[in-house]
């Protein structure tokens, strides 16, 4: 029995299909979701979502962070944006990384929330560059 995976952005439902396994970039390490997974709510970092059918990856998408809800039958990813890996543009990614690094330098380091947000942005941009390369 497969897992039904949904990826939604605030603007639309991006993807809805069933897969044998999906690997999502959870904030504390990648997480493989198979059918019958314990119910969880996790935060995502920027990274790639891999969709498996059998033991082959059939689709890879880049997400820039978000949340995921896992239940034994379903995996729902709430992301701001998800792009197929093939469409990730390296130049774009590098520009984002540069922007994120600039924002980090400019950020107020005394405020941990602001600093965390800036580091998250850098991390997400780095993952994007990697995904493109």
């Amino acid at each position, binding site marked *: 029995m497969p897992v039904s995976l949904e990826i939604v952005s605030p*603007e639309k439902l991006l993807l809805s299909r069933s897969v044998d396994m999906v690997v999502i970039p959870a904030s504390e390490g990648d997480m493989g979701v198979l059918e019958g997974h*314990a119910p*969880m709510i996790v935060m995502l970092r920027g990274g790639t979502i891999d969709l498996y059918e059998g033991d082959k990856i059939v689709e890879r998408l880049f997400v820039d962070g978000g*949340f995921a809800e896992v239940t034994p039958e379903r995996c729902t990813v709430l992301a701001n944006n998800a792009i197929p890996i093939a469409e990730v543009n390296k130049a774009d990614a590098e520009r984002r990384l540069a922007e994120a690094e600039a924002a980090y330098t400019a950020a107020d380091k005394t405020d941990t929330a602001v600093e965390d947000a800036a580091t998250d942005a850098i991390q997400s941009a780095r993952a994007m560059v990697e995904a493109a390369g």
Partner: protein
Amino acid sequence: MPSLKALRTRINSVKSTQKITSAMKMVAASKLRRAQQQAEAARPYAERMDRMLRALAASVAGSPTAPPLLVGTGQDKVHLLIAVTADRGLAGAFNTQVGRATRNLARRLESEGKTVKILAVGRKGRDYLRRELASRIVGDVTYAGKRRIDFGDAQELGIRIAGMLAAGEIDVATIVYNRFQSVIAQIVTEQQIIPAPPPPEGEAEDLHGAIYEFEPDEETILAKLLPQALAIQMYRSLLESAAGEHGARMSAMDNATRNAGDMIKRLSQNYNRARQANITKELIEIISGAEAV
């Protein structure tokens, strides 16, 4: 009795007005369809967000460190009213409705001894509120010239409001907007967004007795999820308001087109009567002239 020429000019001018109003109606109809589709597309995310919030809120309920976005500041002194209107007029009572509701709410809160701050979204609402409540307006936003509202706009608003809350500038936030019910009915709605209202009761997920695990812990997730939920709520009301605006304009323009049609009919009748009277008069003059000979 106006002259024939004057009548002709009036008929022509009403006809061109009718052309404009019926064109505006068509445009509003197609924009309405697009706005409705956009609102439709935003629904899945909001639903899943609600489901997650329900699970999270249940698990931090009663915790003393629950974030202010969820439970408020514990005070009820400074109210922020977010009035969402359109940037353009000619939409019937659409903008005035929100303006009036905001004004009444502001007056009521002030008579209870509370401080009111207003954030005006949309140019028409800003102009309306500026006349009477200028001193309470703390900011305004317009999307004039934008083809469509995207999630980024809502997110900016959300961040701004969350920032005001974090800085202790406000205790409660309420959004006043036109909820789209149908093309002819937009209902002015006051919705409290801070402290967050309990997520609507929904089908609880049957987890066969299991409970959610959280990674990282609930509070870290909540701290990230709540601003997002706020942005989603703003996004929803902006979209509802956009759909409502086009609906209101469509019915206002439909009425205007019909009124112009009635007017053209009446004027043409007058014109024809005047023309006939003229002909009769000329005939009488000719006949009586011929008799005299």
